[in-house]
């Protein structure tokens, strides 16, 4: 084997130093070292936000933020896993709220404390413009708050870092729901289909299919014509 095949790196996990193969994610490197996760591991694909990690490189004073399942372990990383830290969220009834400009400020008044320090944006492992959506929310721009925060996986790093104690990810979730419910109309073709189902229009055709034996189904399946894109 060549030298490269044996390449290892040193990582520091909460103060203890381990040698691990190069080419692993932070999560895999920690498991290789002997850590078995209970907290701090979820979907392992970058969608759930369970594996927020803070690290610092040797010779660098700055803290960095990552998802352990997505970021590669590098030589000399000082790693700390952050268990998910719940932040208070406002209870609301989506049916009863007034979906106008002030609604986000009403339920999350602390967004008015934003000092535009951009720490939230720097902490976001999804590269979301977090501060920009907080500012949009302050202006009452629900559509922009929803659009900018769309990729949020609610890991909570923004909220943990915020000097103004803003609950970014809960507020943005509310914005997306208000947008979905009130600002993006339900297509008429869905309502039409629902009316037909309600009236039982679809039943006879389905009943016929349910009653078919396999032989008949094979023929019906083969006779389908695929809709062109």
């Amino acid at each position, binding site marked *: 084997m060549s030298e490269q095949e044996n390449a290892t790196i040193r990582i520091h996990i909460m103060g203890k130093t381990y040698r691990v193969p190069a080419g692993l994610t932070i999560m895999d490197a920690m498991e290789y070292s002997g850590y078995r996760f209970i907290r701090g591991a979820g979907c392992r694909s970058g969608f759930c936000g369970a594996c927020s990690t803070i690290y610092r490189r040797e010779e660098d004073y700055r803290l960095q933020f990552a998802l352990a399942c997505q970021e590669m372990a590098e030589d000399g990383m000082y790693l700390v896993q952050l268990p998910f830290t719940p932040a208070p969220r406002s209870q609301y009834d989506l049916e009863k709220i007034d979906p106008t400009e002030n609604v986000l400020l009403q339920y999350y008044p602390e967004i008015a404390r934003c000092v535009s320090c951009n720490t939230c944006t720097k902490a976001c492992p999804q590269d979301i413009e977090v501060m920009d959506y907080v500012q949009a929310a302050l202006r009452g721009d629900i559509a922009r708050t929803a659009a900018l925060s769309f990729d949020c996986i609610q890991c909570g790093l923004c909220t943990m870092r915020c000097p103004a104690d803003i609950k970014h990810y809960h507020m943005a979730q509310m914005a997306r729901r208000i947008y979905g419910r009130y600002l993006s109309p339900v297509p008429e073709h869905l309502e039409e289909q629902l009316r037909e189902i309600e009236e039982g229009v*679809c039943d006879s055709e389905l009943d016929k299919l349910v009653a078919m034996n396999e032989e008949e189904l094979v023929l019906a399946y083969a006779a389908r014509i695929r809709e062109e894109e």
Partner: protein
Amino acid sequence: MDKVSKQELIRGYPQYMRKSIERVEATRAKRLESGPPSPMTAEERENILNKYHPDYKPEKKRKLALGISAGEIVPNEMADMLEAHPLFDPADVDLSHIDYDVSLLVIGGGGAGTAAAIFAHQEGIAADDILVVTKLRHGDSNSIMAQGGIQAADRPEDSPAIHYLDVIGGGHYANKPELVRALVLDAPKIIRWHEDIGVMYDKQDRKYLEAHGGGTSRMRMHSAKDYTGKAIFSAVRDEFRNLGIPVLEFFPVIELLLDEKGNAAGAIIYNIETDEYKIIRAKATVLATGGFGRVHIQDFPTTNHYGATADGLVIAYRAGANIIDMDSVQYHPTGVAYPTAILGQLATEKLRSQGAVPVTKDGEAFVFPLEPRDVEAAAIIRECWEMNNGVETPSGVRGVWLDTPMIEEIQGKGTIKQRLSAMWTMWHRHGIDITEDPVLVYPTLHYQNGGVEIDEHGATSVPGLFAAGECDGGVHGKNRLMGNSQLDIYVFGRRVGMSAARWAKKSRPKKLSLQHVVDYEKLLKKAGIETDRVSPILLPDYRDEAVISSSLGRFI
């Protein structure tokens, strides 16, 4: 680990892969003009499945030796978990002290469980009379990871009947007809419910942006970029939180409880951090515990979340619930083959539904890109190992190219970042720009097609026990289509919530029993199974062998 260090990579790929990428680029214009290969005939499909699909290897499965479905064929890994001892001795548990006494217990905090709790509440069960328990965090589930979409026939060109045919043909006609009927007929209602709770579906000109999936004959795939599962689930969970229904996190269920008549009566949960157990008594129980991806059937890598270890199936089986279609496993055709650090993670089918086509190391298209998943996976396996047309990675994995730059050519520049931002981000983190370069893919373990058999109300063979989502069986037959698992969890999550609530309302509190676990031990002995295996396994163990072999096992 990859032999090649980071410095030698050119825009994310080693030099030798770059040479192959050049050949992919050279054929792209011609492929765009001619279109993809035609779909296979029924006979061609059958041939390729028999020869190349991992499910069609009889030596990787065996007949269950005991229990209600004895004789059913299941993967060896699944049989190992079912032919195993419980985690504790029933004699050591005090069932007289009840920690939680509720009308409805929901086991599992993914889409199906969360929806079940919401609809049970709508059906009249008070929020604090429902308890949701989950092994990890509320939402750490496959539900949140779904990328490509959710099917619902809601365009004038489409109908629930056409959806029905797609589902049952894709499932090799093994699906239970009444379950497919419920799935397709409820689909538009579920989309409407999602609208009500504020899910942001992709729309254009006041219509849904709908696409094909593998094996669909109409464009009915609804999406929320390529974060469909997350967008839906996070709204569902937010709605659930507004209702104030209690959740216990990091509390896996380690055994179901029955009453003296054999009805479901609650469960024993286990605090995975403090090692203590708690007793829950419930009038009705919903099983929404997902599938078995993290058991790594046939050693495949998986797209699944950390907790996908089929716990619910194991405990339900001990309690006497029968299983169906567990012989069939879904391998998603396109898991990540390179970079090795994210091996097996999902490359969504939406990449293909937006125009990307699988091609060989020489840039030749070899399969219609939207065959049903089992067929597509078999075609990719054949290309890699029989035709020798794959690209081998430094870690010895083979894959074919999925030509993602075609998406931008077909749908327009900027489409990938707009509609596939999760995919763009995933590869971008490893220096690969999927708008410019193709990605290397190979099938990955994705979904448990079968499960605990249910009827159209979600009832299992154990009275008072209901099941929904990936742990249920009968909806998808021997192969699930893209976009039907998101549909399954909400269609059957809603149905079991309502059925379980009605069941709970007419039942009385019960006397708790673990006799079924005692009896199961006897069955093990009778079947002559001598093993030190225990189940449910709760979490996989990915520690290095060297660490495990020198572990004293005091704290883990």
